[in-house]
């Protein structure tokens, strides 16, 4: 068998960080799903050769600094307004490829109106939705997506549906709207799921090149700091608790 030091040579290279990921060390907590999804978006843009023409819309939430990590053009939206800004950018520059990137507090709470109306208008954009069931950035408050019984800093004994209402499956709701062409839910908690998420992102960007309308890719994610678990425990907890409520797979593909 070859020895490790002889294997480590350029002709044997099979995986390296894409050049689209900048050298800035991500500010995310160890194990945060945001980093994994950033990487996949960067790889898809790289592999499609669309670096020069892609514009990302960053949200408010933990991923507010997303523009520091992927080497493309970006705009920063006010909290929840990424789909509105993406609409403007895409309409003013239809030759550009535009995607929004948002957390669940951003997309499904403060920005619900912008989300629904962009999808209903069928804006020709990609929307990436990181659903970690919590407001990560501000200290782990309950989000519309927090599961029944799931603790958060504003419901330390768990979400009580009688008091707090039901978790919002906004992705299923958006699939009902005629403007969406591709609505799909994925995760990045296993290597197989990471590969599927990347394929879905690729398809979403290709839909935009084909002028098909709004593609929404939800990634059920973890927030180990907010959930108060290790990253590996968070992945397991997510699989056991989040995925039954937010099942993976295509909801709409036209």
């Amino acid at each position, binding site marked *: 068998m070859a020895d490790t030091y002889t294997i480590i040579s350029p002709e044997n290279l*099979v*995986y390296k960080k894409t050049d689209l*990921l900048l050298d800035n060390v991500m500010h995310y907590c160890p194990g945060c799903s945001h980093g994994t999804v950033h990487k996949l978006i960067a790889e898809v843009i790289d592999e499609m050769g669309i670096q020069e023409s892609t514009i990302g819309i960053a949200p408010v939430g933990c991923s507010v600094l997303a523009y520091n990590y992927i080497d493309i053009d970006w705009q920063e939206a006010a909290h929840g307004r990424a789909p509105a800004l993406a609409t403007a950018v895409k309409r003013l520059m239809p030759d550009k490829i535009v995607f929004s990137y948002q957390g669940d507090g951003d997309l499904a709470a403060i920005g619900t109106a912008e989300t629904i109306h962009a999808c209903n208008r069928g804006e020709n954009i990609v929307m990436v939705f990181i659903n970690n069931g919590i407001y990560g950035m501000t200290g782990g408050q309950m989000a519309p997506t927090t599961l029944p019984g799931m603790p958060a800093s504003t419901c330390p004994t768990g979400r009580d549906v009688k008091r707090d209402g039901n978790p919002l499956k906004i992705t299923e709701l958006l699939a009902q709207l005629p403007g969406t062409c591709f609505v799909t839910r994925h995760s990045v908690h296993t290597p197989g799921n990471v590969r599927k998420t990347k394929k879905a992102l690729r398809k979403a960007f290709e839909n935009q090149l084909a002028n098909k309308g709004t593609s929404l890719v939800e990634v059920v994610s973890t927030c180990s700091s907010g959930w108060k678990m290790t990253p590996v425990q968070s992945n397991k907890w997510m699989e056991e608790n989040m995925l039954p409520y937010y099942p993976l797979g295509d909801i709409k593909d036209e």
Partner: protein
Amino acid sequence: MAKAKGAIVVDTVTCKGCNICVSACPTQVIKLADQVNGKGYHYAYMANPDACTGCSNCAIMCPDTCITVYRVKQTSAEPTIH
């Protein structure tokens, strides 16, 4: 059939010791070091290098993309007898 054999290189400066690569490796190659890096994280390293197949699971799972993967196709020293 040629047997693949791999190796990884971890960027120990940017590694956050999250343990995700350790749990993603099907052949238990990776461990977290007893030592810490400049940020105080127990960084990942190849504790069992002979078991690495170069499958890249660890690298695609790493949220901070700290892992580079290499893989060789082994050519058998002896000719295969059919």
